[in-house]
């Protein structure tokens, strides 16, 4: 999905709202930041980039950030290569977003081996709408 598609989604009401897009443009794509986590929007490919740590103090921000970029029928790419730590509820938020997708996929790029293992032992890595990409990290 390219920039044009994003704007198409915007005009058809499927994608992010004007406030979020304007906000993203002004702040260099940053849609969430606290002392241990930064979430930025990525356009090529379309999605979000997570850097830092997700734990009980900020795990509620993850579904909120995901909802800002959520596309029901397209693919959403998440660059998680910069995640130093992510607890299970953080991973659960990615899984919930993938579950809510109708036709598209949630693609995780640069998933650290530990998180991959946690997803395997919880059975989440078998979800059809969730793809763990073994290609290089994107959108950074």
């Amino acid at each position, binding site marked *: 999905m390219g920039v044009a598609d994003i704007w198409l989604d915007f005009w058809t009401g499927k994608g992010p709202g004007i406030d979020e897009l304007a906000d993203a443009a002004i702040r260099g794509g940053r849609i969430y930041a606290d002392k241990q986590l930064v979430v930025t929007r990525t356009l090529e490919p379309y999605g979000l980039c997570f850097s830092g740590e997700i734990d*009980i103090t900020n795990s509620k921000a993850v579904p909120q950030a995901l909802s800002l970029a959520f596309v029901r029928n397209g693919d959403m790419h998440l660059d998680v290569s910069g995640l130093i730590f992510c607890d299970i509820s953080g991973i659960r938020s990615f899984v919930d977003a993938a579950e809510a997708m109708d036709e598209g996929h949630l693609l995780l790029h640069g998933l650290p081996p530990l998180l991959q293992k946690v997803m395997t032992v919880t059975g989440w890595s078998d979800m059809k709408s969730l793809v763990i990409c073994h290609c290089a990290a994107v959108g950074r």
Partner: protein
Amino acid sequence: MPALNPVEKFRHEALLYSGWAEFVAGTVPFIREGVKAGEPVLVVESVDKIEMLRIALGDETDAVLFANMAEVGSNPARIIPAWHEFVSRHAGTGRRMRGIGEPIWKERSADELIECQRHESLLNVAFGHGEPWWLLCPYDTEKLDAAVIDEARRSHEFITEGSEARRSEIFRGLEASGAPFDVPLPDRGTSVGEIAFGVDGLGSVRSLVARHANAAGLHRERVEELMTAVNEVATNSVRHGGGGGSLRIWQEHVALVCEIRDAGRFNDPLADRQRPSPVHSAPRGLWVANQLCDLVQIRNFANGTVIRLHMRRLPTHRLSVVSDAQDYTPLN
């Protein structure tokens, strides 16, 4: 071997044996009868015993699934999920199933032994109301202490000794098998790190674990796994254990141990060994801790919960397939 009656429900039986001949005499007819009846049979034993059984069984080996107990049951809390996978794979086919599992051997550490004994009791809870299958648990009376054999008589409804199978008179029963586990945890080692935490303290908890795990010489991958497990248990303390708790870290001979205490109580004896459904929002912290750590000790005391997470400094076996005749993997 008499009394090989068909089972209509879960039958949990200890086989008391002394020496290889008695082991073979107690297990081979049990396996053969299962194979003859078309029952799926899974044997979780040591590599040596698997080799011996294969030779003794000859052509019938192909009909039997084998897994290495040293790998499956390295952390005893992973054994019930492995049996559960075996049983649920064959459930509803109308066929009974058979298993042989020897989780206790002489070289088990004191902590491993007590968790294995807890595991044996929890098998009654996990399968007592479920599918009909027969689990035979060999106990080596020559090598194991008498107290270990006594405990086997309490955790198994049936005991086979010599050629005689009978009900154990001191079996503790299904309900007591799942009672809150409050066996005291012995003091071991001097704390190298200690911290009290609340909702904002989990970053400090992770830093402390990472620092001491690195200092203890744990491999980087294991440091991260321990950090994740401790973080999940501490998160449970914040959410369900009164808003926080305390962490204590010490080194033992082979492992680094992290102990988390909080004021919470829970009463699901299988909370840490039931594979969570991927699409269910059930808690996963204790399950994941058991998959990542070498040993997890959970105690429910009157004044709160204590959980010890052990991580060995030497690499441990990971779960793998032993049988090349079947593509059975007890766990991923």
